[in-house]
């Protein structure tokens, strides 16, 4: 429900000043027409107060009822009707009140001569007030709608980001559990260690919130946890080479951003070749960005990585777009049999 404009202090003050100015002007005008100052003051105060009360009433009423269609006809008729009522009320109050006075001007005749002008002025005032009120409420309504739309969009965006972050590959989980199952008989100590690593990984996956950016050092630790699990699964086929410039370690980035990129590189690398695979991860500063490159081998004869985004990077691309509203933070590069994914994270200064 929109607030009435007269409920705000500033606008109420303006409204009252307006009333005072009109009243003063009317007093001067009536004195100019030869009425005594007492009559002029009474006439002005009574008629302007009636107008003010009607305007306040009208504006307040529009809070509860504002026609959607035909609102300008509504304004016209309500202003005309209300002006008529005000004028009748003025006459009913003022004529008996001021008739007896022995004035140089006969008030009854004066009132009946001036009724058209009075009606004009009252109509202008009431119409003006109703138009202003309509505009006021329309803009309030508009603002409320916009707020609602923004809220809905924000919620949708958060939900989507949450979903994009939560894409823990079930394949990874079940295969890891299967490895643990195999280790339990032969190497129970290592099985226990892997359960620990998998738990830490899952905990990290559950806990992180989008807004809480993490330092690169923490993200790299998390990545190593993940890579250690994968190395148990794939044995000697998988090796990694992580290099990070020291000044990058404190840079911050959204949580769980690198893991899906590395997961993609492993999947792509390990399932596209039968040889041993090295996944290289490099991090360095690049102006105001942290630039992270993840490199994996592939077989150019059988796979055709498409330029831009290929191979399961669309969800990362989408996430970066939702976070930064930029489509250019994720790139891929192909040289011979190496596929490189490059992600740049802007740093807040």
């Amino acid at each position: 429900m929109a607030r009435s404009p007269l409920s705000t202090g500033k606008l109420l003050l303006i409204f009252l000043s307006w009333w005072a100015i009109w009243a003063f002007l009317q007093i001067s005008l009536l004195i100019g027409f030869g009425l005594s100052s007492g009559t002029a003051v009474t006439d002005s105060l009574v008629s302007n107060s009636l107008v003010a009360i009607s305007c306040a009433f009208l504006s307040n009423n529009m809070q509860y009822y504002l026609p959607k269609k035909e609102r300008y006809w509504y304004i016209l008729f309500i202003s005309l009707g209300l002006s008529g009522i005000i004028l009748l009320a003025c006459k009913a109050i003022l004529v008996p009140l001021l008739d007896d006075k022995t004035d140089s001007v006969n008030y009854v005749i004066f009132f009946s001569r001036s009724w058209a002008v009075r009606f004009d002025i009252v109509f202008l005032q009431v119409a003006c007030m109703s138009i202003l009120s309509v505009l006021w409420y329309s803009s309030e309504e508009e603002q409320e709608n916009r707020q609602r739309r923004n809220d809905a969009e924000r919620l949708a965006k958060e939900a989507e980001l949450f979903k994009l972050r939560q894409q823990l590959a079930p394949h990874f989980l079940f295969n890891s559990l299967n490895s643990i199952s195999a280790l339990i008989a032969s190497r129970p100590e290592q099985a226990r260690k892997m359960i620990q690593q998998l738990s830490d990984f899952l905990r990290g996956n559950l806990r992180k919130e989008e807004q809480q950016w993490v330092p690169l050092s923490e993200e790299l630790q998390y990545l190593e946890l993940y890579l250690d699990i994968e190395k148990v699964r794939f044995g000697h086929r998988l090796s990694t080479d992580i290099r990070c410039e020291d000044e990058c370690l404190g840079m911050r980035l959204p949580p769980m951003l690198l893991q899906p990129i590395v997961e993609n590189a492993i999947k792509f690398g390990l399932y596209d070749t039968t040889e041993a695979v090295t996944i290289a991860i490099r991090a360095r500063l690049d102006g105001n960005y942290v630039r992270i490159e993840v490199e994996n081998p592939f077989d150019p004869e059988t796979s055709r990585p498409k330029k831009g985004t290929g191979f399961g990077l669309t969800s990362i691309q989408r996430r970066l777009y939702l976070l930064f509203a930029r489509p250019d933070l994720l790139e891929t590069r192909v040289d011979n049999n190496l596929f490189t994914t490059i992600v740049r994270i802007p740093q807040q200064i």
Partner: protein
Amino acid sequence: MTINTNSNPIGTNSIPAGTTPGPIKAIIIDDEPLARSIVSEYLQAWPQIDVVQECNDGFEGIKAIQHHHPDLLFLDIQMPKINGFEMLELVEQPPAVIFTTAFDEYAIKAFESHAVDYLLKPFNKDRFDKAIQKWLDQRAPNPPSATPAPTSADATEQLLETAAQSPAQQQRVVVKTGGKIKIIPLEDIHFLEAADDYVKIHTHNGAFLKNRTMSWFEKALDPSQFVRTHRSYILNVQQVTRIDPYEKDSHLCILQSGAKVPVSKAGYVKLKAVLGL
């Protein structure tokens, strides 16, 4: 039936006297060493089954199958280069298969619709023993031999047909040429031609044979990209440059490579629909 894992299962499946069956030969194909080790560990309780080889991927798997002629395969689906289904496609007369997979919605759906036994990783010993026992029971009526029970071979065939329609496999075709395995991306295929029991796949790099039927390909390939224009031909619509009228009701399609592919009356209707003419 209940399975007592402590008893020796061979006692429950007596081998007919007079035959001298060798041990049952099994091959484990999985790219994860620990996943293979758990299968061989569980198999220690089945002394009649002998693991003759463990393989890292489908390439090794095909060689091992040709070399050993096993009775039973333990086969993972997701593997490097070619997956378990594609490997089976390349094996003539594939042996009985117990699939082992962690998570692959499509594969599981395929298994279920063809009642093929499969083990979801991680699986326990009871579940594993049940699968082995079921397989042994199925083959019991037949004398143990190098060829598996016909029912399981049929089931495998149907399974492969379904599996070929999976999103992953719709991107490529795997063929064997000489001793080598070749993976052909679909966009490289010009057209397919029936050739007796085989289908000849014409590509940028020459032609390859695959021992599948035309209708198998027709089902497996994306119908918006590949159209069966003739009883003996399926063509890649992206390769079409021109369609010329040819005798009577038939047409001839000219491809970018210059090849001419016959188009029957019914095929012409299908082709026009796909090309949006």
